[in-house]
């Protein structure tokens, strides 16, 4: 399902037009960005947990050339599906 289908489905469910739905998604993402920025996690029941995790710096080795790279530490979003969703997967 691509973005267009997603927006049309969303607009149908909320009974708004697609333009508004697209704007709403953008705003919702920026709200979530703010939440991540302050280091908080978002947990939605039935969906899962979205949180920012810090990944430490590491040395990666190119197995072909043997060149070592120091990869800097970074903050990344991780998603963990809720147990409800996990049950549905089986």
């Amino acid at each position, binding site marked *: 399902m*691509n973005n267009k289908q997603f927006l049309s489905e969303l607009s149908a469910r909320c009974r708004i037009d697609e333009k508004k739905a697209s704007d709403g998604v953008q705003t919702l993402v920026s709200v979530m960005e703010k939440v991540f*920025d302050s280091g*908080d996690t978002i947990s939605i029941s039935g969906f899962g947990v979205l949180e920012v995790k810090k990944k*430490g710096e590491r040395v990666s080795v190119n197995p072909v050339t043997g060149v070592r790279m*120091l990869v800097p530490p970074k903050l990344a979003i991780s998603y963990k599906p809720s147990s409800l969703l996990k049950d549905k997967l089986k």
Partner: protein
Amino acid sequence: MDNKINFSQLSEMFAQEVGISKNMSEQFVKSFFDIITEKVLSEGLVKVKGFGTFKLVKMDDRESVNVNTGERFVIEGHSKISFIPDPDLKEAVNRPFSAFGNVILTDEQAGELMKLNPGLKEVAEQQPDQSADDSDSAPVETSAVHKQPVVTISNYRNSEYYKESRRKKKRKDASRKIVKWLLLLVLIAGIAIYALWPVVAVDIMDSICKNGSSTVSSPVYVSNGSKGTDTAFAVDSVKTDSILDMVEITQDEPVSEPEPESVSETESEPVSEPEPEPVSEPEPEPVSEPEPEPVSEPEPETVVKKEPVIEIPVQKPADAMASFVLVDSDSKRDLSDISIADTVNYMIGGLLTVHVMESGETLTKIAQKYYGTKKLWPYIAAYNKSLDFNRINAGTKVNIPILCNR
């Protein structure tokens, strides 16, 4: 910090942002996540622009070992939901660390780093999806502060190392060039002698018959001695040509050198740079030590006169560390009328000082202050990638880099 934001809190924040009723926003947020969960299960893939992609990944059966009992057992194949965040979101979340890039390490540096930080993992590049470091994940902010200097130091080290290796390479290339040319010359001379040997030999025989005194071992002299015949003349001209060539080449190289120590054979000396630019570095040594201390601070005037080193006195902080040295081969050149094309000749050699922006100050003004020319401001911008220089506030701390000649 470390709060859990649940559905109702999120929809409340969303309602405030958009300015709609709570009911509407709850409905919107609920359907947003509902659609994702439903469709990822039914269709296996949901793409949301600006947020990311949810994907259903199938895992095959695999065998594993119980760590405690050593028993083998099969983990049955199952499905997993993977989330790949949109690049925009990823970047926004990673903003605190966005200034860092990958750094190539040498074996020595890697060993040093391992000693400093034994917890550091070495990972083959083929598995980019690193599991999060558990010990680091909980206190995000504090560990971030702790880790930062390590990277900057290695960055700095690396840049120094990089410069040195560059210089070595340049020298090697130059000496290789000389050897190549010499070999080529010898080859050409050999071929010429070989091709013309019958002629020369005849000539020698002739002259032996005539004089009876010349020796075979020096054919050039012999042919010079008997200029009467045409063939001898041809040999002569070929020889002198190639000799001229050699002289030209051997003279060519030391020209760019201020003091030719010895002609052609010495391989270790830095020979003319590959670029035809007139600005060559007569002594690359001062660049290799970008540490600001060793430059004699008390007498900057004499330094300027004696050597092609231009020192720009900087307002000194408490420590006398921050003196900026711009090494330039041409002492006559004034930095204030440096051309734009010349500004690309420098490279960043480390941190000079940290400047706190005052109101009314611009990057060009800082560049004027620290480097003596405003045209070098892009280096400051490049060194502070995390800052947006179109909207900079007073009090912002700006790192000023040391610039060295390439």
